[in-house]
C-alpha cells in the first residue's frame, strides 16, 4: 500500500479523503493556496504544501505546482477529489510520466468520457441506452430543422462543449429549432470557443438518476445502486438521495448493468458515475460519465456500507476489487443536503465572510464510511465539511461548505432525521441556504417523491421568500417558547438585590404571538418539564434542558423532538426552525392586551431606494441627481472583497438624491440613492 498520498484539492472533499487515508494508515499531504492557509484540510493533513495565490487557475489547477508538491513530499499517489484536476487527462499523464499513481481512472477513460459526443458514441456501441439524437456536425439551421423532425419534437439543441445551461435551447417547433440552432451556435462560439452543436430528444418529466460504479484494473466492475439528484437549482444539485424513490428493481438492474458495460468499454478502473436522465415512464437515457468521485457519494456509502475512497485507493494500488456484485445490498435510505454559502432571500447570491458561528449537528458516533450505517444506530447523521467556526468563506472557490447526510431505515425517517439535523445546524456570519433546505424537506411534493429536475423552478418560481409554519407546527413552537420564556423570567426574578418578601411571582398564564397569531396558553410546570394548555383545551407536554441564553434548544414536545435556534429580539425571541424565521413574543395576558394596541409599523418602502447589497466600498456612481434612468442601467459600482459589483436600475425612474459617493464604505442595506 502507498505510504503517502497527496490530495490535490481543498475543502470538504480533501478532508473526506484524508479521513479514509488516515483510517488506512496512509500519510497525507494537503496543498493550499494563500486563501487556504488556515483551512481545515491543511490542519488535518500530516503535511501541507503551499501552491500559490488564491485563484484556482494560479494554484489548485496548475499541474506544475501540484507536481512540485509531489516531488517535495515524496507522495506516491494523488487523489484529485472532484472538480479542479480530477478529470484532466493531462494531469493523469503528468503523474504517469513521473511514476506517481493517480487515484482515479486511466487517462484513456477520462479522455473518452470527457467529450459529450464521443462519450455518447461509445455508450451507444456498448449497448447503453442513449437519448435519440443526431451526433454529427450540423451545417445550418435547415439541417437542424430536418434532424429535429426526424427525432420528433420537443428537442434539445446543445453545444458540444457546453455545460451549466450555456448554449442550450429547447425547441417545440420548426421555427424554434431554427432560432435555437443559431443562438446556441453563437453562444457556444463566444462562451467555449467551440461552436459545434448537436440535437437530441428533449425528455419530459426528467429525473436525474445516476449509477455509482466501481471497477478495478483486472476487468472487474460492479455497480452500487443509484442516486437520485433531481433537486437542482440551475443545474446545481442541492439535495440528493439514495436509493431513488422512483426506480424499481428491474430498472435499477438494467441501468447498473449498462453502466458497468460502459465502464468496461473504456477500460475503467476506479470509482465512477454514469449519469442518466429518466423520464416519467422509467425510460432511461445515458447523459454522461463522471470519471471521478462525486460530491454526493456519501449517500451511496450510507446505504451500501462501502467506503468508496478506500476502494479507489486500493484499485489505484493495483489491487483486485474485494467486492463482487453479490456483496452489494442497498439498506435503508440516505439523504444529502448541500449547505451553500448562498443567501436564499437574495436570490441565492453567493455570500462570503467570516463564519462567526458554525456548529453542525452532532454526527453519529461510531459511524465511519465503510461500515453499515445500521450498525451505528437506528439513524445516522454524517456531515462532510471543510470549514470551521471562525474560518473565512472566500470568493475564490465553490460556495458549498458542507454536505449534511442522514440515514434511516425508510425514506420518511431519513427525511425526518434531516429536518431535525438541519434545525440543529447553526451557521452565522454569512448567508446560507439552510432555511431553503428545510423548506424542501417539508414540501409535500418532495415528501411524496414525485420530483423532477424542474422541482425547484416549478415550486419556487419567484425564488424563496421563507416559510410560513402550518398551524400545528406553530403551536408546537408556541408551547416551547412559552415554556422557555417562563424559565427565563424565573431566572430574572432571582436577581440579587430583591426586596425580601416582595419578590416577583412569575405567573402561569401567557399569550404567545408569532406569525400574526396570538395564542393564549397556561403553563403547568413540574420538575421534568411543563404542560402547556391552549385556549381550546388541548395541551402539549414540553420537556427540555434548555437554559436561558442557549442558542439551540433541543426539546421534546409531546414526545417528538423539536429543535429551535433561539436568538434575542427586543422583548422576545427570534426562533428559527423548519425554514421559518419567527419573531416570537411571550407576554402576560395584560401585556399582550396592551401590545395589541401598538400600531403595526410596516417596514419602510425600499422600492424607491437603491440599497447597498453587501458591505463594500463605492467605486463609482454613474448617474447624477435628477437623471432619468432606464431599467437595467448601471447606477453604481460597489467593490466587495476586491470584486466589483455593478448595481443596476430595477425599473425606470428619476434619481432624486444620491447619499453616497466614491470612496464611501457602506454596510448592508445602507441607502446609496433615492428615486422619485
Amino acid at each position, binding site marked *: 500500500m502507498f505510504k503517502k498520498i497527496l490530495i490535490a484539492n481543498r475543502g470538504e472533499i480533501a478532508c473526506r479523503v484524508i479521513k479514509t487515508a488516515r483510517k488506512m494508515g496512509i500519510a497525507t499531504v494537503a496543498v493550499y493556496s494563500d486563501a487556504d*492557509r*488556515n483551512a481545515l484540510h491543511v490542519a488535518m493533513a500530516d503535511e501541507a504544501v503551499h501552491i500559490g495565490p488564491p485563484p484556482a487557475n494560479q494554484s489548485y489547477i496548475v499541474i506544475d505546482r501540484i507536481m512540485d508538491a509531489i516531488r517535495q513530499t515524496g507522495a506516491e499517489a494523488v487523489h484529485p477529489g472532484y472538480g479542479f484536476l480530477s478529470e484532466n487527462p493531462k494531469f493523469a499523464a503528468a503523474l504517469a510520466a513521473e511514476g506517481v499513481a493517480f487515484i482515479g481512472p486511466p487517462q484513456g477513460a477520462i479522455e473518452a468520457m470527457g467529450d459529450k459526443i464521443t462519450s455518447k458514441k461509445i455508450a451507444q456501441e456498448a449497448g447503453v441506452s442513449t437519448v435519440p439524437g443526431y451526433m454529427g456536425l450540423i451545417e445550418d439551421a435547415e439541417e437542424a430543422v430536418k434532424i429535429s423532425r426526424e427525432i420528433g419534437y420537443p428537442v434539445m439543441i446543445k453545444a458540444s462543449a457546453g455545460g451549466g445551461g450555456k448554449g442550450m435551447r429547447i425547441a417545440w417547433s420548426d421555427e424554434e429549432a431554427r432560432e435555437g440552432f443559431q443562438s446556441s451556435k453563437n453562444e457556444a462560439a463566444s462562451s467555449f470557443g467551440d461552436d459545434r452543436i448537436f440535437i437530441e430528444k428533449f425528455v419530459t418529466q426528467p429525473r436525474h438518476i445516476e449509477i455509482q460504479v466501481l471497477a478495478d484494473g483486472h476487468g472487474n466492475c460492479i455497480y452500487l445502486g443509484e442516486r437520485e439528484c433531481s433537486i437542482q437549482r440551475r443545474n446545481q444539485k442541492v439535495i440528493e438521495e439514495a436509493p431513488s424513490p422512483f426506480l424499481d428493481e428491474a430498472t435499477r438492474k438494467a441501468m447498473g448493468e449498462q453502466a458497468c458495460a460502459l465502464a468496461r468499454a473504456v477500460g475503467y478502473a476506479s470509482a465512477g458515475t454514469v449519469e442518466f436522465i429518466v423520464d416519467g415512464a422509467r425510460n432511461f437515457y445515458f447523459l454522461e460519465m463522471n470519471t471521478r468521485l462525486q460530491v454526493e457519494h456519501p449517500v451511496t456509502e450510507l446505504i451500501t456500507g462501502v467506503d468508496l475512497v478506500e476502494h479507489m485507493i486500493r484499485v489505484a494500488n493495483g489491487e483486485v476489487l474485494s467486492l463482487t456484485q453479490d456483496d452489494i445490498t442497498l439498506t435503508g435510505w440516505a439523504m444529502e443536503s448541500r449547505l451553500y454559502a448562498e443567501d436564499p432571500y437574495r436570490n441565492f447570491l453567493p455570500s462570503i465572510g*467570516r*463564519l*462567526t*458561528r458554525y456548529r453542525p449537528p452532532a454526527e453519529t458516533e461510531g459511524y465511519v464510511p465503510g461500515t453499515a450505517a445500521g450498525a451505528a444506530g437506528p439513524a445516522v447523521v454524517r456531515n462532510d465539511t471543510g470549514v*470551521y*467556526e*471562525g*474560518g*473565512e468563506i472566500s470568493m475564490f472557490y465553490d460556495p458549498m461548505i458542507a454536505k449534511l447526510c442522514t440515514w434511516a431505515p425508510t425514506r420518511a425517517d431519513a427525511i425526518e432525521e434531516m429536518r431535525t439535523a438541519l434545525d440543529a445546524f447553526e451557521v452565522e456570519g454569512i448567508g446560507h441556504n439552510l432555511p431553503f433546505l428545510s423548506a424542501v424537506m417539508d414540501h409535500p411534493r418532495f415528501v411524496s417523491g414525485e420530483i423532477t429536475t424542474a422541482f425547484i423552478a416549478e415550486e419556487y418560481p419567484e425564488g424563496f421568500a421563507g416559510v410560513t409554519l402550518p398551524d400545528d407546527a406553530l403551536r408546537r413552537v408556541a408551547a416551547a417558547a412559552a415554556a422557555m420564556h417562563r424559565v427565563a423570567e424565573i*431566572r*430574572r*426574578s*432571582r*436577581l*440579587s*438585590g*430583591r*426586596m425580601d418578601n*416582595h*419578590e*416577583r*411571582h412569575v*405567573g402561569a398564564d401567557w399569550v404567545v404571538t408569532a406569525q400574526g397569531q396570538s395564542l393564549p396558553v397556561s403553563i403547568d410546570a413540574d420538575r421534568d418539564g411543563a404542560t402547556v394548555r391552549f385556549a381550546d383545551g388541548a395541551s402539549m407536554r414540553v420537556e427540555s434542558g434548555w*437554559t*436561558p*441564553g*442557549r*442558542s439551540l434548544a433541543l426539546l421534546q414536545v409531546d414526545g417528538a423532538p423539536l429543535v429551535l435556534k433561539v436568538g*434575542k429580539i*427586543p*422583548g422576545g425571541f427570534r426562533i428559527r426552525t423548519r425554514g421559518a424565521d419567527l419573531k416570537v413574543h411571550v407576554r*402576560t395576558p*395584560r*401585556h399582550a392586551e*396592551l*401590545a395589541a*394596541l*401598538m*400600531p403595526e*409599523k410596516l417596514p419602510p418602502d425600499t422600492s424607491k431606494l437603491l440599497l447597498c447589497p453587501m458591505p463594500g466600498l463605492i467605486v463609482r456612481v454613474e448617474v447624477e441627481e435628477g437623471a432619468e434612468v432606464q431599467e437595467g442601467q448601471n447606477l453604481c459600482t460597489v467593490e466587495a472583497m476586491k470584486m466589483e459589483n455593478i448595481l443596476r436600475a430595477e425599473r425606470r425612474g428619476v434619481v432624486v438624491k444620491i447619499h453616497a459617493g466614491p470612496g464611501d464604505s457602506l454596510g448592508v442595506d445602507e441607502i446609496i440613492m433615492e428615486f422619485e
Partner: protein
Amino acid sequence: MKDILHELQERREAARQGGGAKRVEAQHAKGKLTARERVELLLDEGSFEEFDTFVAHRCTDFGMQQNRPYGDGVVTGWGTVNGRQVYVFSQDFTVLGGSVSATHAAKICKIMDMAVQNGAPVIGINDSGGARIQEGVDSLAGYGEVFARNIKASGVVPQISVIMGPCAGGAVYSPAMTDFIFMVKDSSYMFVTGPDVVKTVTNEIVTAEELGGATTHTRKSSVADAAFENDVEALSEVRRLVDFLPLSNREVPPVRPFFDDPDRIETSLDTLIPENPNQPYDMKELILKLADERDFYEIQEEFAKNIITGFIRLEGRTVGVVANQPMVLAGVLDIDSSRKAARFVRFCDAFEIPLLTLVDVPGFLPGTTQEYGGVIKHGAKLLFAYGEATVPKVTVITRKAYGGAYDVMSSKHLGGDVNYAWPTAQVAVMGAKGATEILYRSELGDPEKIAARTAEYEDRFANPFVAAERGFIDEVIAPQTTRKRLCRAFAALRGKRQQMPWKKHDNIPL
C-alpha cells in the same frame, strides 16, 4: 365605614380614568399608551404603590378652579422590576396634556426625594405638553425643583428617562441630566425650541420628527441612548437595562444566576484578527463571545459607531464594556466617540460597575474639523474619565494601540488593573509606515530602502512584547482563553478599594 370605603373606591376609580375614555382613545390612536398602562408594563405585576393619587392643582387663574382632575397629570409611586425596587413617575398626556404645574412637579420631587433617601433608581416616563401656562412662574419653579433633584440624585441613584411623547422647551433639561434617555420611534420628540420658533428665528423649515425625533437624537445629537419601535418594546428594554444596574451607589451591581461556563474556550477568536492589519473585523463578535450567554445591552448603538459602549455580564455580574470598533473609521478616536465613551465610563465608575476595555485603536482622527471642534478637550474627557475611575479596570489589546490613544484606552499608566494583550497586539507610537517615514525621511526617495525599514520597524514594534517587557502589559494571552482570563481577572478584583485624594470635585474638561 362601608360608605367611606366605597367613597375611596370611587375616588380611586375616578383617578384611574385619567382624562376620560375619549382622551384615552385619542392617546391609543396615536400609538401611545396611557401613563398607567406604561407603569403596568414597566413594573412587576401588582407591585405598583401609588402616591398622591388625589393630588390636584391649586391654580385659580383662567378658570382653572373648574378643572381639578385627580393626579394632576402625572402618576407617581414605586414598584419592583424583577423584585428590585424602583421609583417611577409617568406623565399623563390625557390629563391637561400632561402639563407641568407646581403640584405636578411636587409629586415628581416627592418620589425623587424618596428614591435618593432609600437608594432606588428613578424612572421617568415623559409625555407632556410642557409648562402649564395658566400657572406661569409657578410651573417654571416646579421645573426648577425637579432639575435640582436630578442634579442631587445624579451619581446617587440611576436615573432613566423614557420619552414617550412630546418633551419640549425647558422640560428637556430634566431628562438631559439623567443617566439614560430612551425614545419611541415616530411618537416622541425632544427639542428646546419647536419647528415654529425655528422657522421664525432662523427661517429653517423642519418637521418635529426631523428636529427632535428618535432618529435625530440617536444618530445625530446623541441626546438619546436608544430608540424603540413602540411603548411596549421600550418599557420591556428598560426593564432589561434595570437588571444590569445597581439600585444606588451604596449597593453593588446585581448578580444574576448564569448558565454559561466562565472557562468557556472560544477557538474562533484565534482567527478573529485578519492577517492583513488594515482589514477590519467586527469587535461586536468579540463582545458577544466574551459575554455570558451572548447578552449585550448596547448604549448609543447608532452614534459614533467607531466606539462601542454597553453592558454585559461575566459570571452573572454586570461589566461595562468600552471597545474600539475597527469596522467604522478603523476604530479611531474622535470628538464624538471620546464624548460617548467618557460619559459611559463615568456612569460605570459612579455606580461601581467594573470596566472592560477592548482596544484596537489607530490613534486620534486628524483634520481641521476635529481640531476646530476641540478634539483636544473632548479626547481629554475620555482620558480623564478613565484616569479617575476607581472601579476594577481590565483591558485587552486585540490589535492596534497606537500613540496617545493607547494611553487613553485604559492603559496601565491610567490605573488599568489587569492589562492583557493578544499576540496580534501592536503597542507602538504609531503604525510602521508612518514611523519609518518620519525616522528615515532622508531615505523616502528609495522605496526599497523604506520597505526594508518598515519591515524592520514592524519586526521590532508591531507586537505586544516591547510593552510586555516593560510591564505595561501584564500578560500576553491566547485569544481563545479571553473569557476565562477576564472572569478570573474581575473575580480577583472584587475586593478592589481605591481612594482618590480629597477634593470638592474634579474639574473634568467639559
